[in-house]
């Protein structure tokens, strides 16, 4: 379907979009509709076994997260939380989902090894997933705590559910208490 003159937007699926093309990686950030997007990509996910990521609000949307998590693990994917705030709300995390059968061949990846060993990428299950909203130190949404920032500085929002400012503060204050 094509957009009409009135600004209507066609709805499609991941399967329809890819057709015969192969999927290698998908980043899905659709404000709570991640499960719907995955449901529309069943053929691609089982055929190509891409790595994909979804955004989730680990505390605010526990119920829908459970459904999403169960669906992803039923597809035989392993879920890793990226320990970094990914949106306005401080419980927002990217979940990196890797096909179970690809984990062995990814063991040689330097970036994955470093991420897992340094604790920014954490393998989770349904039971412990919500714990990872409060583990410290929190990597902020904005680009602080990087190579060029001052020693000990991260961006944090001091005890709030949402960001109050993008000013850096010290690592001692990086845990939100939402």
């Amino acid at each position, binding site marked *: 379907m094509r957009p009409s003159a009135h600004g209507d937007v066609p709805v499609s699926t991941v399967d329809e979009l890819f057709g015969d093309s192969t999927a290698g990686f*998908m980043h899905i950030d659709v404000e709570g509709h991640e499960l719907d997007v995955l449901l529309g990509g069943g053929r691609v996910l089982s055929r190509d076994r891409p790595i994909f990521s979804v955004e989730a609000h680990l505390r605010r*949307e526990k119920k829908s997260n459970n459904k999403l998590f169960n669906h992803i693990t039923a597809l035989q994917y392993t879920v890793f939380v990226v320990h970094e705030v990914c949106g306005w709300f401080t419980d927002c995390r990217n979940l990196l989902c890797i096909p179970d059968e690809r984990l062995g061949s990814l063991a040689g990846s330097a970036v994955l090894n470093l991420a897992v060993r340094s604790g920014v990428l954490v393998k989770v299950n349904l039971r412990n997933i919500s714990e990872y909203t409060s583990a410290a130190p929190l*990597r902020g949404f904005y680009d602080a705590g990087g190579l060029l920032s001052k020693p000990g500085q991260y961006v944090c929002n001091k005890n709030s559910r949402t960001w109050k400012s993008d000013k850096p503060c010290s690592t001692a204050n990086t845990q939100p208490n939402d």
Partner: protein
Amino acid sequence: MRFNTMLASGLLSVALSSAQHEHANLCRKPPRESTFNSIVEGLLRDGSMPPGDVLDVGANTGEWTCLYACVSPSRLVHAVDPSAKNLRLLRCADHIQNVRKARLALSAVGGYNITGPGKGAWATASYRLRADAAVGPRRRSGEHR
């Protein structure tokens, strides 16, 4: 003659460096979600990412799309967003060959139209709620990225 050649090569190098500068600008790493994007970029660069196209659903103005397209020029990168404005702002698609834009909403089933978002980025979130209502039970929606 020699002078002309030197001048021409000088001009060429100026043109090249400005193109390179433009390219570097388009490929600038997004200032947000640096940890996540470093991991994805690392996987794309070290050959660990499975072969195939890249899909960015909810591409917004394409900061992620452009990064993925720059670091993996041999893959097609599809930017999908329901907002025409967002896709207009996705400028790297004009300069980088492997970016494809699609004004779509992706869901569990397709084949119908929904009313598009109004002006502004925030309208996208409410638009998605309407999309959800068309598919099934209404879920609480988060904020726009």
